[in-house]
Structures are given as structure tokens and as C-alpha cells.
């Protein structure tokens, strides 16, 4: 406001105008087309090749942090979220959220070899025969059952663009997803799955996947999102009791 302005009226309007200007700016920022940084002109890498490379890259992953969101829950178990650190052998720790009626409950878990411990809302940690009755986190990094399998069984891959997700530059690839492969990760998903995977341009690891699960019978249409970060960073899993 150091520059002299014409009249007090103009000057008095400034804050009003300034705050009004923020509104469309903010809205624009929120709705900005994610394809904004499309690699224009240059040809994108072939989708099918990317999937093969990625499936192979995923077999080298030793540890990873995952966030799996299922919105709304599908299948018999009302799981809406699983989050945690996984080791390749199946050791894992994290938390699962279940919808019980209208209430969201969180159950923490630790898996070490054949032992598993669960922490429910009350009662502290206790040994559980196996965690697989709720969810089997060891599936995710398993080459036969996990993400690598999901990628190598996907079809109709089309590379759509380049964008930054989970902190890395990635190729966005639209795919049709094999129901059997998806079921090993999220039990209860129906046929006719489509989705999008994001593949790290450097390491070729899959960093994110979104699967659209269609409505089928009593199963509602659902969006399943898997975010993978912190690849191969040390994970310490120890028995809680």
C-alpha cells in the first residue's frame, strides 16, 4: 500500500477484492487437471511393457509401507482400510480399520513368522492364531499372490501420461484387472474390474493403484486405492508382548 491510490474508496475495496480473488484461485488449485504435465509430443512408453517391467521390479521389493483404502467395503469383511509396514517374508505391523455398524473400529496387528498378535479396542495385545482370518498382509509382496501377480495378469494396458504420485515421477497406466489376482489382495471383489496403476519412471516399481470395483449383486460399487511408499527402508517388527 505504499503506492498512492486514487481515493479512499478504491483503497477500502482492496482487502475485499484481495480475498475474493483468493476464491477462484483456490478452487482452480483444487480442480486443476491432473493431466497438466502430460509429456506433450513425445511418445509414451508402451503400457504392456511397463507392466512386465514393473511386475519384475516388484519381486525385488524387501519392505514397503502400504495404505489400502476400500471405499466402501466389499466382500464378507467390513474392512475399510489397512495400513502398515510389510517385510517380504510376511512379517508386518500396522492397523486395520473395520466398520461395525456406523462405527469405525481400529485393530492393530503384528505378524512375525507364524505368530500374530492383535490389539482390539480393549484388552491390550493378545496372541491370535493367525491374522489371515481378518486380512493377510503377507499377500501383498508375495510374487505369486501379490502386486507382482496383479501387474502381470492385467491386460489392455494403455499408458495415459506422466505425473507425480507419492513423491516420485510415475507413468500412469490404465488397465483391466484380473479378478482372481485382485481377490488375493482384496477378498470379495467381483468381475469386471478396471483400474489405473502408477509406475515409477526410474525404478519401475508400482507406487499406487486404483481399482474400480463395479456393483455386483449385494456388493456395492467400490473404489480400492493402494499406496506404496518407503520401499526397502528398514522395518523393525517385534513381538508386542
Amino acid at each position: 500500500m505504499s503506492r498512492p491510490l486514487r481515493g479512499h474508496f478504491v483503497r477500502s475495496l482492496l482487502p475485499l477484492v484481495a480475498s475474493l480473488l483468493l476464491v477462484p484461485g483456490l478452487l482452480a488449485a483444487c480442480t486443476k487437471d491432473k493431466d497438466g504435465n502430460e509429456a506433450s509430443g513425445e511418445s509414451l512408453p508402451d503400457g504392456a511393457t511397463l507392466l512386465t517391467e514393473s511386475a519384475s521390479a516388484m519381486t525385488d521389493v524387501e519392505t514397503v509401507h502400504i495404505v489400502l483404502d476400500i471405499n466402501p467395503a466389499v466382500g464378507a469383511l467390513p474392512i475399510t482400510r489397512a495400513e502398515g509396514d510389510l517385510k517380504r517374508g510376511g512379517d508386518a505391523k500396522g492397523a486395520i480399520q473395520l466398520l461395525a455398524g456406523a462405527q469405525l473400529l481400529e485393530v492393530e496387528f503384528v505378524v512375525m513368522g507364524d505368530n500374530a498378535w492383535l490389539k482390539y479396542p480393549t484388552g491390550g495385545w493378545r496372541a491370535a492364531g493367525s491374522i489371515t482370518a481378518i486380512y493377510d498382509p503377507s499377500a501383498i509382496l508375495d510374487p505369486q499372490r501379490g502386486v507382482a501377480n496383479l501387474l502381470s495378469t492385467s491386460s489392455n494396458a494403455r499408458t495415459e501420461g506422466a505425473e507425480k504420485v507419492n513423491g516420485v515421477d510415475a507413468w500412469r497406466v490404465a488397465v483391466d484387472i484380473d479378478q482372481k489376482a485382485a481377490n488375493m489382495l482384496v477378498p470379495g471383489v467381483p468381475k469386471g474390474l478396471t483400474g489405473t496403476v502408477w509406475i515409477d519412471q526410474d525404478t519401475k516399481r508400482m507406487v499406487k493403484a486404483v481399482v474400480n470395483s463395479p456393483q455386483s449383486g449385494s456388493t456395492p460399487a467400490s473404489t480400492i486405492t493402494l499406496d506404496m511408499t518407503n520401499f526397502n527402508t528398514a522395518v523393525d517388527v517385534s513381538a508386542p508382548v
Partner: protein
Amino acid sequence: MLRSDAAPASVTPARRRVAIGAGAAAVLLASLDAYVVVTLFVDMARDMHVAVNRLEQATPVVTGFLLGYVAGMPLLGGLSDKMGRRAVTQICLGGFLVGSMVTAASIEIGEYLDMEPLPVLVAGRVIQGLAGGALLPVSMALVADLWTEERRPAVLGTVGAAQELGSVLGPLYGGALGAIIGWQGIFWINVPLVLIAMVAVQAALPGRAALGLTGPRPKVDLVGGLLLALSLGLLTVGLNNQKPEESILPPYGPPLIIAGVAVLVVFLIWESIARTKLVDLSGAPKLPFFAVLIASLLAGAALLVTLLDIVLLAQGVLGITDPRESAKLLVYFLAALPVGAVIGGLIAGKFGLRGVTVVGFLISAGAYWLVSTWPASILTERHELLGLSLPRMNTDLALAGLGLGLVIAPLSAAVLRIVPPSQHGVASAGVVVARTIGMLVGFAALTGWGLHRFHTGTRDLKFPELDDLLNPTPEDLAAIAQYEAQLRDYLMGMYRDIFLATAACCLVAAVVSLAITRRRPAPQPAVEHTEAPATV
């Protein structure tokens, strides 16, 4: 910060009333949003991926706003002396607009930014609080600009009432409307409301020039404001335990709390030596002033603990999840607040500010003691009293609200009696700051303590096997029902403890209120005629 010279003649009385109406409306809008989350808290937490057994993760939705509110008041509020009331009001409304939109769109923004929605929501709430908090002192300063000294207390009361009204209407408005349009809708509604308020403020508030405020601009105690905000930030984070099953305080809690207290001491030292102070107390008696602030602080803690813990108790113990139903449980408490405030205002002249305040706190302490004896079947319990059969829950809550309401007017009036007239606006805002700090710290501390007690108590309460929950046999169902009954008892025990502590807060407040002077010491000749014959 405020000037005590007479109101400018260039502003007509009608224009003045419109101006303060617009200012009060803006204050109400911000205050509503402090309390609107009370009945929406459970829904918001679920959408933020916060499970009911981890609600401590969602407390920043409440504390973030309050922290912003307390920080915004002295910092942005003081700015209005430099930039003019209208300009700062518009900036605040603009900020409030942005904060509301960030809050409403937190899930979408989180998706866009590849992050969890909760930090986005909390950021939106902090922005809302910062901007909303500043509206109150700015409007109070406007009163000082526009009214002569003798008329000021009444008009300050109007602005204060708008702020109080938010606490009464917010939870009800959130519950009633939130059930229909969802919690996001509640924050989107702010967009048209704020835009209307901005137009009204632009038209109604006089600019700097019209007020003749062209002389040397008063200084703002930026350092004091920053120190206070920093101290509260440290205390809030230090008290917010994400693992209440392991300890009362988080591992990083003690150092942060010690640092927070240390900064608070620095703040107090600064206030005693600085030339520009947040509130200039020179010539005013310190002890009664601090008594008013501490009593306000404790009242704030009781208010927010009641609002949130009754909603959480309803959800956990009574199985009430619909925000409309939660709001209904609060109606008696909330309706009793203004009733008490009006009664308190009327009888303070006869019985003295101190007497009414002490009695009000004692009534609340008694009511919270009653609440702390509630059984899990409280919904159907009744008081049999002198041949009357009263629903126990509503009666106890109405009593608590009445007691807290009684102290509102006397505390606001007492502070005006204590400080010199030039400090009326700041001191009034100070009472609200103190109350907000009480809400913030009281809620954070009591929640952490209560949750820790709950987790310690239920350490051996075995949760049913998940398998049994999903495919229950008749025996499983019986075992699950038994578990749920035990869980309700433990939860009820936790809330009983929290309300017993609240009763203790009110008792302490009653004792502290004894220090509120009955007679104004050394009345200043210039303002003698403004005094009501309130002392007996």
C-alpha cells in the same frame, strides 16, 4: 490499543448501529464454527479415517480451531489499529472463507495433494480459527471508535452476546443441519454467509478516514501476542496424546509442556516490562483482574468438556450416533446458558458481581457432581424431588448450564469495572481469550487423562473374537452383549471421572471468584458517572 476519545460526530447513530450489527454478525458466524463441530465430531472423525477407539487422533479438529482463535485475537486484532477496522474485518472474513473451504473440501484436497485428509482439515480449522478469532477484538475496538465511554459497556455486551450465542446455537445448528447436508455442507454454507457479511461490512463499516483516525497509529504488542500463541501451541501439542493406552502424556509431552510454561512465564515478564502491552493494566488492580481471567478460563474448560463429552458419552454409552439426537441431549444445557446469563445480568446489580459469580460456579459444581454419579442407564433415570419426577440427565445438564450462564454476565461486567475505560475492548476480549484457553487446555488435559484411565481400566477386558463377531452363534451373541455392557460401564466410569474433575474446576473457580472486588478501588473521576450502583 484502543483510543478513549469521544465518538466522531461524522458517523450518525443509525449508521453506527448498522456497523456494529454487521460486526456482531461476523463475530457470531465465527463463534458458531467453534462449536459446530461438537455434534459433527463423530461423523468428521469417521470420514478422516479415525476409528472410534482412536478418537484422540481427531481432537486437533477442535483444538486447532481454538488455538487459531486464541492466536488470532491479539495478533490480527491489534492489526486493526494500524490498518483500520474495515480492512482487517474484510481480511478476516476472507481468511475465514478460505479456512471454511479448505475444511469443507479437505478430503478432495487431500486426494489431490496425495496426503491424508486429517491434516488438511486441521489446517482449514486453524485458518478458520485465526481469522475468526480476530473478528471479536476488531468488533470490540469498533465499539470504542463509535461510542462514547458511557455507552460502551452496553454495546460491548451486544458484541459479547453474539460471541456467546455461537456457543448456544453452534452445536444445535451443526446437529440439525449436519444430519441433512453432512458436515462438509455445514462448512460450504459459510461461503455465501461470509460473502453476504463482506458486502454488509463494506457498506456499513466506516473507513479510517470517516472516523478521523489519521493521527499517529497506536502500537501493537506483537511480541506478547506471539509469545502467548507459542506457549499455548506447545501446551496443546504436549497434551495431545496419540497413545493414551500407554501413558497420560505422550513421550514428548513433558518437555513440550515445560517449554510451554516457560514461554508463558516469559510472556508474563514481557507484559510487565514492555512499553506496549496486550492489556495495559496500569492503574487497575491486578488481583481481581487475574481472578476474572482464571474464573473465565475454568468456565471455558467446563463448557467445552460438557459439550464434547456429552456427545461422546451419548455415542459410546447410549449408542446415539445421529448428530440430531446428540444435539437434543445438549438442548437443556445450551438453553440454560442464556437463561442463566440473563438472570445473572439482572440480579448482579442487587447481589453484587462477586456473589452471583460464586453462586453460579457453586451451582455448576453441584450439577457436575451429580453428573459424575450417572449410571449407564441415565437416559431412563429420573429425579424424584418434592413430588416432582424430572428426567435426571436433562435436569443435571440444565443445572450445569444455568450455573455457567450465571457467571457469564458478571465476569464480563467485572472486567469492565476493573480496567480503565481505554482498555475496555481489550479486556473484554481478554475474558474471551481466557475462556478459549480454558477450553483448549482443559479439554486437551481432561481428555488425555480420561482416555488413559479408560485404557488402564479395560486392559483386561477381552474383546470378542472377530470370528465370533462376524459369524455369531447364540452363545457368542450373549458373550458379545456381556462385553458391550462391561465396555459401557468402563466408558461411563471414564466420563464420571471427567465430570468429577469438571466439578472440581467449578469449585476452584468459585473460590477464585471470591477475589473479584466488590467495590471499584480508586474510581477515576472521568468515568464516575458510568458506574452502575451495583455494589451493596
